């Protein structure tokens, strides 16, 4: 079972929920948590496991070979991302803009743009008792998260069966990286905060999940601040509010030290149990 934890707005508690949920689950069964917020993965701050595997990840980009090039300009015409441009008698490639679609390379009449691997980031895998934690980190200067997310997903799927519960910590927003994380999920948990900003971005995330035809529910974090608009919105849209984690200074303190919440605060554990019961209940009823 694949459960993605996404949000719309950043800083609402995706990582807090992901790490606490994963470690609570791992007390009774095998769990895999994958941090796919590859531009700034931070689940690892809360999980101190043993490094069991590490690999570099590459994407394919064209490299210009000037000897055979006829300077026909076809490459720049077929590139939708302006990653290849022709300046009079030379071709310039911008690897960071390249989406590895191979069009320029395949359609070059003189084979002057062979594809070569370029390092874009690293994947690391840690083990902590029954929790397997995987994170990928994009190299500085790389502009695209999607290829690394896709390769990380592939790694997890090839190595681990879907019988195991797989949690995915998604990036914020509703753009391509979030789509890449959530498109194969059986269930998506949208974490929000009860503020106008939280509501605004939640509505965008809800629209996105509906477009993807996903089952999803909402967890309200920092409950007690702001207003009731998020709760009212979920009610009127018939979106289940699975859990509410109260706003508290104690939580912020624990978080800032990289500590887990549920071991210290029983009320948080109660809310996490609600999330697990809801998701597992859905699964048991064959609703996923």
């Amino acid at each position, binding site marked *: 079972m694949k459960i993605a934890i996404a949000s719309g707005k950043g800083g609402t508690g995706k990582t807090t929920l992901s790490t606490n949920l994963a470690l609570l689950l791992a007390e009774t069964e095998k769990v895999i948590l994958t941090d796919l917020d590859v531009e700034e993965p931070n689940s690892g701050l809360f999980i101190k496991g043993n490094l069991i595997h590490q690999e570099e990840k590459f994407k394919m980009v064209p490299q210009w070979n000037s000897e055979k090039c006829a300077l026909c300009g076809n490459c720049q015409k077929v590139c939708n991302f*302006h990653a290849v441009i022709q300046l009079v008698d*030379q071709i*310039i490639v911008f690897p960071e803009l390249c989406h590895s679609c191979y069009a320029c390379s395949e359609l070059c009449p003189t084979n002057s743009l062979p594809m070569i691997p370029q390092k874009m980031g690293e994947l690391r895998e840690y083990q902590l008792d029954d929790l397997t934690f995987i994170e990928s980190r994009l190299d500085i200067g790389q502009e695209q998260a999607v290829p690394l997310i896709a390769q990380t997903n592939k790694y997890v799927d090839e190595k681990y069966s879907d019988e195991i519960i797989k949690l995915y910590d998604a990036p914020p927003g509703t753009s391509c990286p979030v789509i890449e994380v959530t498109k194969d999920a059986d269930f998506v948990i949208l974490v929000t905060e009860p503020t106008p900003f939280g509501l605004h971005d939640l509505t965008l995330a809800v629209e996105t999940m509906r477009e993807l035809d996903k089952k999803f529910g909402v967890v309200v974090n920092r409950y007690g601040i702001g207003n009731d608009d998020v709760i009212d919105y979920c009610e009127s849209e018939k979106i289940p509010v699975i859990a509410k984690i109260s706003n508290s200074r104690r939580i912020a303190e624990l978080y800032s030290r990289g500590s887990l919440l549920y071991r210290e605060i029983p009320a948080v554990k109660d809310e996490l149990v609600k999330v697990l019961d809801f998701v597992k209940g859905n699964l048991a009823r064959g609703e996923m």
Partner: protein
Amino acid sequence: MKIVFTTKGSEWESAIDPRFGRTEYFLVYDEENDELSSFDNRAINDVAHGAGPQTAQKLFELQPDVLITGNGPGGNAARVLGSANIKIFVGAGEMTAKEAFEAYKKGELKEF
């Protein structure tokens, strides 16, 4: 000498657009013939990625001797402009094209 300004309009009184890649216009001044023309670059708004190299390519086609702009081109655009023999002057972000031209003449703009 041909001088190009990144601008928000097509006249001498137009403000300099401080951005290079997403500049709204290029204002082109041909000193020899005292001719002013412009290139509308606003279609760049529809481009999500790679605005810098694309705008740089347009500029390249205009074949200017000098570019006067605000913040200066970013990394990708600078790579393109590096292949061309164009002198780039920055720091005109809060001026009109006319003021920027005068500042350039007086040597008050910084070379990029």
